[in-house]
């Protein structure tokens, strides 16, 4: 069993989840220029809703769908109640509101029995069977299903943005809010939709991650931080960037874990390497691989 293909495959598996998480983040940034620090908490909320439903004896797939619907509504609610008032406020205020929200959601999850413990989904029968081997590396069915689901959702959103009227409307708002308004687009509706869609993808990411590596509040919400290297590398306002960035960060972090951990005393380079990449990207190409070049030099 060779090390390199194994690391690459593991990177793609985790990278597709990063991509899914980053997609929600990019959707919000692209439409409303809001950096959402609460994204990890929304991911956790989705995962725990699905888990709570399966605990009540609901079918796994149905529970996942309901969780996605719930976070769809949650995203819309957050936008309506909190973010709509913040339009035109300084960036620091908007950022801090989402940080505050992340703390609020953290607290709310701690009020349920799921805050402190660690749980795992009962793997559905279809996914628990024998996996396949790719390039001599075994992949479990859960992992394959996770990657396929993530890629499917990402593809669906790309299609949605390029072909559907609503998707094109959202892009128009992202490009120029004033112009979009003057041709009769409801910018508010687009903001709400962006948050809702972000919520939906967040729940999907949460459920997939929960299936693959178990459910803990810290682990799920921690993805919210991993999103930053991904979107900075891919470009803050690019859907393609989120996908490519997610895969790249996933692969890079696994490569660093595979090759650097032996050199660095104590190991664990996986946690810090993406952020070193982040700083390097900021210094060399701040708008990322696919982002719009809009940074003003001072």
């Amino acid at each position, binding site marked *: 069993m060779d090390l390199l293909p194994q690391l690459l495959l593991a990177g793609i598996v985790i990278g597709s989840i990063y991509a899914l998480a980053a997609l929600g983040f990019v959707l919000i940034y692209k439409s409303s220029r809001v*950096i959402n620090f609460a994204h990890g908490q929304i991911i956790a909320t989705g995962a725990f809703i699905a888990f709570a439903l399966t605990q009540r004896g609901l079918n796994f797939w149905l529970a996942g769908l309901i969780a996605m619907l719930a976070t769809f509504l949650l995203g819309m609610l957050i936008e309506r109640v*909190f973010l709509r*008032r*913040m339009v035109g*406020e*300084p*960036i*620091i*205020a908007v*950022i*801090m*509101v989402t*940080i*505050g*929200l*992340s*703390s*609020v*959601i*953290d*607290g*709310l999850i*701690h*009020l*349920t*029995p799921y*805050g*402190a*413990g660690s749980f795992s989904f009962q793997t559905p029968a279809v996914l628990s069977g024998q996996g396949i081997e790719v390039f001599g590396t075994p992949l479990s069915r859960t992992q394959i299903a996770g990657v396929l689901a993530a890629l499917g959702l990402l593809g669906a959103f790309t299609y949605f943005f390029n072909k559907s009227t609503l998707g094109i409307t959202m892009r128009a708002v992202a490009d120029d809010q004033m112009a979009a308004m003057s041709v009769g687009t409801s910018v508010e509706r687009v903001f709400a939709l962006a948050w809702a869609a972000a919520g939906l993808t967040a729940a999907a990411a949460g459920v997939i991650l929960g299936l693959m590596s178990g459910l803990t509040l810290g682990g799920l919400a921690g993805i919210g*931080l991993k999103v*930053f*290297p991904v979107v*900075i590398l891919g470009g803050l306002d690019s859907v393609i960037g989120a996908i490519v960035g997610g895969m790249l960060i996933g692969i890079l972090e696994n490569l660093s874990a595979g090759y650097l951990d032996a050199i*660095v*005393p*104590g190991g*664990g380079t996986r*946690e*810090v390497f993406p*952020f*070193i990449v*982040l*700083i390097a990207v*900021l*210094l060399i190409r*701040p708008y990322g691989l696919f982002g719009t070049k809009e*940074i*003003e*030099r*001072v």
Partner: protein
Amino acid sequence: MPASRFTQTGNYRTRYAQDQTIFATSAEQLSLIVLVLVLLALPLLLPKTLLRDVNLIMIYAVAVIGLNVTTGYTGLINIGQAAFMGVGAYATALAATRLNLPFFVAIPLGGVAAALIGTFVGLPSLRLKYLYLAVATLAFQIIFEWTVGHLPLLQQGGAISLPAVQVFGIRDTFLNHNRFWYYLILPVLVLMALLWRNVLRTKYGRALIAVRDNDRAAAAMGIHPGVAKLTAFLLGSFYAGVAGGLFAYFQKAVVIEDYGLHISVQLLAMAIVGGLGSLPGAFLGPLFIVALDRGMEVLSQWLGGQNLFPEGVDVATALRPLAFGLTIVLFLMFEPRGLANWWRLSRMYFKKWPYKF
């Protein structure tokens, strides 16, 4: 001279020298003297547990003044202030344990170390603005935590204990610990606040505000925005470093948990609740957040005794982030200028009484 030495009935200033005076009336001077006396007497009046919180508030106030320098006055969002505090704390700890330096050398040394690293971290600000810079400081925070966790020199984030301190023949013991450090932290806080007050009166301080409000206009007026931003980072992280050194001595040990991301977020919350870009806010914010935290502890203890929640729910770990987050969100939505604005309004009320305006 004003018509009355005690109340300000109008603007009587006719010269620039008068305009630059700190105290407009004798009443203001008197109120300061009273405040100083109250502050000096405070440890004798307060119970020991509360005094500990007062000390924490004062240390956080030093860090929040620094955060205000970068975020409040210069507009550079800094999500890594706790890491700068940590740099100061670890530098202080190393200076005290390895080099056996006394605390009055070790703490400023921690400040200088934090300032150096802070300026280095601020370097991206030469090219980047707004959220990109926020993300850069966030990355520094995470890299800092990871690095400390992996350095054997720093006990991999475990506790490094600091030696007890002696001043004027009085030793820092278990019994007088809180009182002892109160009288050491208070002058440092006052000194640091005065330092910033006076930097703000110079052209360098005003340059920072100009850069925050509009950096292109500032550049057109001959201010170098890059230099101004680096100055802000240098000063801001110096304050954080000093706060970290004080914190290390006050806690008697340096542990990585005290300088984590959640502390950075707390410092930002303190700055915002107090009022970004205001000096009184740098005191009111920490006061409010620490008081809120203690209040939630008491409340959750009471609630925990009522059997309202299902088994396995730790009410304290739920209520504290909930209240904290709600505070930030509500302040930003309804009073973005923070407690400092309430302070200003109440001062105006008393000044103008019995008239409304």
